[in-house]
């Protein structure tokens, strides 16, 4: 059955595989037999990974992001988590939407399933 899936990326981007491998999982789920709808949310320290200034190539994000886009997956940064860490909306990459606290948490509650990395 096709599901509406939220993938939470919660960890700082460098030094661990959670952001690139979480993106790999997201696009893998979007590309599977059921073609699940996938929304990736950068939250907590994960919002550092949604910044334009990170070196996506060095973080092995580039290919997974392209694949995810091809599967119509969307990427979102959690504004409340940004505010907590002093990350401004102008710093977020163009292919990542910034959503308010209410919108982020409602999306998580209303999803069919959530995964986190």
């Amino acid at each position, binding site marked *: 059955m096709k599901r509406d899936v939220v993938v*939470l990326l*919660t960890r700082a981007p460098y030094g661990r595989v959670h952001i690139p491998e979480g993106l790999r999982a997201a696009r893998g789920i979007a590309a599977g037999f059921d073609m699940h709808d996938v929304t990736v949310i950068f939250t907590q320290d994960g919002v550092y990974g949604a910044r334009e200034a990170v070196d996506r190539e060095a973080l092995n994000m580039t290919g997974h992001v392209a694949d995810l886009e091809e599967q119509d997956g969307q990427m979102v940064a959690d504004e409340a988590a940004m505010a907590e860490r002093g990350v401004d909306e102008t710093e977020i990459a163009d292919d990542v939407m910034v959503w308010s606290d209410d919108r982020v948490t409602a999306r998580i*509650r209303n999803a069919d399933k959530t995964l986190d990395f």
Partner: protein
Amino acid sequence: MLYLIDKPMAEIGLRTAAGDPEAHVVLIQDGVYLTPDIDAPVSAVARDVDVRGVSLPPDIDRISYHDVVETIVEQEVRSFV
């Protein structure tokens, strides 16, 4: 909806639970160190409480793994663990 909350993901987990009038929060693993300020019933996994020697405030119930699974089957779950 059941919300499983551990400490590392408490930030987004408790914010998500707070917007749900039907939320039931279950503190699990190091989450049992938390005393969340939330308008919802809160339980804590008994085994995780005991081994850490945590004294629960009176408004937090103890819950077994068995009951967590029973509740998860009855209603949806969001895991922040």
